[in-house]
């Protein structure tokens, strides 16, 4: 059964149809990518799936449950956690604290617990502290744990966002153009992290512009163009598909015009 099932998903902004009748099934345990040229509607699609944008029509089912009109934090609580194309770091907090925020869903206790600090709460805080550092080791940021998050170089900010999302223990991790603005070395580090956590059982849905990265790590790829899904298949099928080549490189007619 598909972990994420998208049916006839459509988004219209006034006259513009950003997503039109998209159907997609993401199997549990897969490393799935959605690609497409700029303006193809990838981020709109992502925002609808994660609850940041209300669809005009269609439904989104996650683990057999309709999540189409749920609030973002409720969707996250169900195990669907996203990152952002424009990194949304918690400025004014350290690298480690950023990851500690990620444990929000996995922990409990509000004002009362923080004031009383009973043994269970102290244990929980210590646990969060330790686990945050484990995650930083996993993404390779252990050395920067106590640094201000906003002082990290861009590539490491992206890794931090991934670590933070992992803290929320996602069943499905949505990564919105994680390699945007990264150099080759940083992209490799990121690709390794994504493949590692997929091997550990996290289903990953990746939106990417970078064909080379996607065809290397994704098991299955869907292609969007002008808001429609034009095809879906394995990386090899996608690379050879004439519509994909046309969407990325332009058709012969368009090139000659």
């Amino acid at each position: 059964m598909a972990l994420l099932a998208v049916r006839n998903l459509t988004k219209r902004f006034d006259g513009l149809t950003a997503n039109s009748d998209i159907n997609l099934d993401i199997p549990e345990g897969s490393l799935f990518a959605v690609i497409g040229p700029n303006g193809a509607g990838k981020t709109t699609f992502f925002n609808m799936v994660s609850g940041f944008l209300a669809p005009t029509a269609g439904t989104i089912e996650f683990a057999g449950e309709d999540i189409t009109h749920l609030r973002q934090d409720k969707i996250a609580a169900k195990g669907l956690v996203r990152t952002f194309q424009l990194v949304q770091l918690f400025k004014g907090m350290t690298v480690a604290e950023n990851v500690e925020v990620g444990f929000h869903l996995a922990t409990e206790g509000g004002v009362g617990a923080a004031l009383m600090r009973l043994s269970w709460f102290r244990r929980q805080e210590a646990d969060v502290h330790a686990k945050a550092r484990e995650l930083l080791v996993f993404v390779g940021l252990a050395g920067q744990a106590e640094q201000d998050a906003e002082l990290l170089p861009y590539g490491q900010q992206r890794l931090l966002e991934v670590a933070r999302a992992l803290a929320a223990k996602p069943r499905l991790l949505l990564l919105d153009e994680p390699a945007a603005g990264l150099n080759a070395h940083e992209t490799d580090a990121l690709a390794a992290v994504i493949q590692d956590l997929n091997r550990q059982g996290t289903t990953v849905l990746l939106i990417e512009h970078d064909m080379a990265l996607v065809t290397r790590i994704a098991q299955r790829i869907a292609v969007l163009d002008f808001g429609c899904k034009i095809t879906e298949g394995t990386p090899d099928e996608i690379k050879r598909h004439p519509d994909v080549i046309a969407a990325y490189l332009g058709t012969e007619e368009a090139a000659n015009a």
Partner: protein
Amino acid sequence: MRSNHTMTLRASISTKLGGYDYFAVGGAVFIALLFAFVFIKGGYLLTVMQLAMIYGVFCVGLNFFMGYTGQASFGQNAFAAIGGYGTAILCVEYGFEPMLALLASMAISGVASVTVGYPTLRLRGHYLAMATFALGLITYDLSVQWTSLTQGYMGYAGIPPLGIGAFTIEDERAKLVCLMVILVIGLWISGRLRNSRFGRALRAISATEHGAAALGIRVSYYKLAAFVIAALYASAAGSLFAHTVGFISPEVFGLQMVVVTFTMLYVGGIGTVLGPAIGAVVASLLPQIARSTGRFQDIAYALVLLLLLIYVPKGLSALAGIGRPRPAKQATGS
């Protein structure tokens, strides 16, 4: 890499003194001397410091909403007014114990802040600022116009000082000690909450609401919680003013309070634990020092504030970072 390591080690030794660093020790000594001076000198300075402690309580609360959570409120004085009038009316008209009246007023403020905050906090940025500003203005007008309840411009006099049963704190020095203890408790709560799951959620929201929501943080709930906490502190500050001075009028909780507390928050360091209290003391004492310049006192006061905001934009509490070793930068690669 070894030389790097020894350097940071030496740096950390040089600013430590038996486990405490120089800044903390220096700050504590300075505060102790300041209070010793105030206690010996007495008189008007005692009143100034009493008010500084009360404003400190207000600012520590406001810091939850504006500092930790990063939301604008220009109307927290409304809850100080509820605290002040609540305590005055309950004590003078109904003969409540002062402590009981203070707590009862806080409960009223809590209910009021949930009622007002629930719809208002859907707004963001400038709109939230405008809405909260209106809240303060409405409360001010109510305190002026609703004379059967508040006695209007005449204000309320004869509010008893704090105390328990027959034991009341009448002495001005004792009052100051009592207010100090209350402020320290307020700071303790603030620090404890800031460094917890709850505080991290607030601070995450102040940086990016989307980022926080994507990790499962219920943004509207935490904003409301911070707003209510700020209202409870404000209410306590309003009540403390009433019990300390013994008299309140609408002006006490007017626009002046908004301006003064904003100054304190930014001078001390918004978003830090100690900043609001430091700001309250400094911004209360400054006008007294500026007074020595005679008819230029307002100019001197404004000038000092401007210089502080230009050269210490993160607030006085940020000075704690100066002279401290920067966190050792881990060597990458080998």
